[in-house]
């Protein structure tokens, strides 16, 4: 794939909102084999994920590579309409970040990212509470949900955060030990 084709592909995937979009959308067109996004877009989603679910004494979303997970799920499991909401949302998130912080999301400090996404989360919540049945889910709700799902089902999330036990061997319906 040459650069022109790649640009067209991204432009198409992002619903024609490519023009004027940020650097992460216009560089590094090395498409993953299986997913929808290139490595810079995956890195961007990993940072969004890490801000939602940061490393503490347990791993964060970036270590679980939730960006690659989103890349595959948005491509294969989302409806075309939801896929567009998500990809448009990536662009919108970047633009909003610039408005709010004066920097692109990748350039913003961890503190700026957290403050911005906290505000965006509130907006998503307000939108979702007023949403009518035929309106799409808010893009940030999608990102937050996929961050959690991608983390829990990843090896680091399942093993180091949840107590992954592939064959419990018994059922105890009244234990004092937390299973996570």
């Amino acid at each position, binding site marked *: 794939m040459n650069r022109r084709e790649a640009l067209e592909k991204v432009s198409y995937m992002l619903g024609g909102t490519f023009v004027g979009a940020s650097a992460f959308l216009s560089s590094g067109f090395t498409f993953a084999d299986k997913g929808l996004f290139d490595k810079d877009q995956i890195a961007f989603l990993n940072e969004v994920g890490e801000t939602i679910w940061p490393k503490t004494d347990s791993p964060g979303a970036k270590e679980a590579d939730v960006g690659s997970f989103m890349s595959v799920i948005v491509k294969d499991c989302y409806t075309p309409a939801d896929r567009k909401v998500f990809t448009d949302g990536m662009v919108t998130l970047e633009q909003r970040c610039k408005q709010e912080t004066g920097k692109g999301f990748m350039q913003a400090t961890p503190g700026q990212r957290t403050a911005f996404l906290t505000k965006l989360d509130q907006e998503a919540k307000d939108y979702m509470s007023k949403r009518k049945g035929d309106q799409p889910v808010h893009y940030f709700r999608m990102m937050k949900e996929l961050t959690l799902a991608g983390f829990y089902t990843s090896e680091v999330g399942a093993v180091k955060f949840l107590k992954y036990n592939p*064959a419990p061997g018994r059922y105890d319906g*009244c234990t004092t030990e937390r299973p996570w």
Partner: protein
Amino acid sequence: MKDITYDAIVVGTGISGGWAAKELCEKGLKTLVLERGRDVKHIIDYEDMKAPWELEHRGRVTQEDRRISPVQSGVYNYNEVSRKFFVNDLDQPYEQVKPFEWARGYQVGGRSLLWGRQCYRRSEIDFEANAKDGHGVDWPIRYKDIAPWYDYVEPFVGISGQREGLAHLPDGIYQPPMDMNCVEKMVAERVKKGFGGSRLIINGRTANHTRQIGKRGPCQFRAKCESGCSYGGYFSTNSATLPAAAETGNMTLRPFSVVREIIYDKEKRRAKGVRIIDSETMEEHEYYAKIIFLNASTLNTTAILLNSVSDAFPNGLGNSSGQVGHNLMDMPYGMGASGTYDGFKDRYTFGNRPTGVFVPRFRNISKETERTDYVRGFTYQGGAGKGRVGWADGVGVQFKEALTESTDWSMSITAWGEHLPYYDNKVTLHKEKKDKFGMPVLVIDCAFKENEKALGKDAMNSAAEILEMGGLKNITTYDRGKIPGSCIHETGTARMGKDPKTSVLNKWNQMHEVNNLFITDGSSVCSSGCTPGPSVTYMALTARAVDYATKEMKKGNLR
């Protein structure tokens, strides 16, 4: 002729076909077992040992899955691993006059790989119901006829459960039950006391083994049965009956064999054999046998009968009654209630239990419990649990901390009810459309009616009463609006009965008009019952029918 002639042929390898194969082979009959799909070898062909992160979509259903299997992908246990045990709907079309979810698994083992595993005996009330209220035809058998055969199959199946001593829910032969958790125990206690014993919450009776049976089990409490189970922790054809059949040396298993019709010998008035299409070569073959067990699952068994036309049977084999394809039943389900409990805050559950609690029927089982707004009854399955908080506002460290907290306990119970046999709920063959094997496409026309709706409404409201009595708070009721078929308990389209004019099979599951043909899958039953576990009844009917058939063969009574 040698390699195409057998003592017996079994069509289908689901729950009932597997049992027919096992019983026939163990009685010394050289048996050809036909399966329309591919072989699925126990353990070897399962992907249950994969961790979630080893799956490309972490278990999720893709848009492509939804495109090729619009019906199957909506089945409750369809996922990235189990999807290979479901058919491609585009490849295997059927027509829905009214919405009907037809879950299908075309492979060795059939839907025994995917079943819900609950196993409840039918009671005398169930067998008497048609005669008493006049719906359908009277069952030609009663509880005493089938009870010894439940006794026979249950220990081999390996059912965990608790004996309760209830007349309307007969006890079976069980392995130790899977425990209730602390909230279920508390609720069960309060409900028993509060309703004076007239409503009960008991342990689910499930074909998940708490004790090892030969090489099978015990269950490892993973609750991923639909993946297939390399531990053999639940009963399936693949883990249990077919290995037993194979061990006799009497079984020939032939996958990729789509049975088109039963060949009828007009002179001798018997089923001579079957005509199949090899789904790999598309070649036609014939096989012959002294007796035939048709166990293709309710709707496909019906299709084969309707497609087996001859001068003697222009409307389908053994269909002089005109009942083949009629009286289709499923079960109305999905009505229930849920609530929360704010105690036991420092208690959790460990392990994933592949069953839950069960509420035996309590309507229309006596004069005192008689309803004026509907006949028959319903039961509930349910359970209590708690987990990690799943959602919170915000992002970052606080959000993460919020999601390490525990939820309160919650509990729900969901109803499974009886579907009356209505003549106009039916399946027919499409007059023009054929599938790629030249079989006419099935046309399904089935609905729930007033009785099911009234029963469902009561089931929903009664669920709330039970949970309230159990001490739960924040109780809400629901009706999932499930369409026929979605319970995956389709039955009744080649029913047993006393009178050949109004039924297809006699009390031995033997075709009235063709006495070397036996049908022991769901198509043979006269009523749906109201417990969510019809399969164990098919197993018992199958073992009973094989015993009868082989005795009759020895006596020379089968043509």
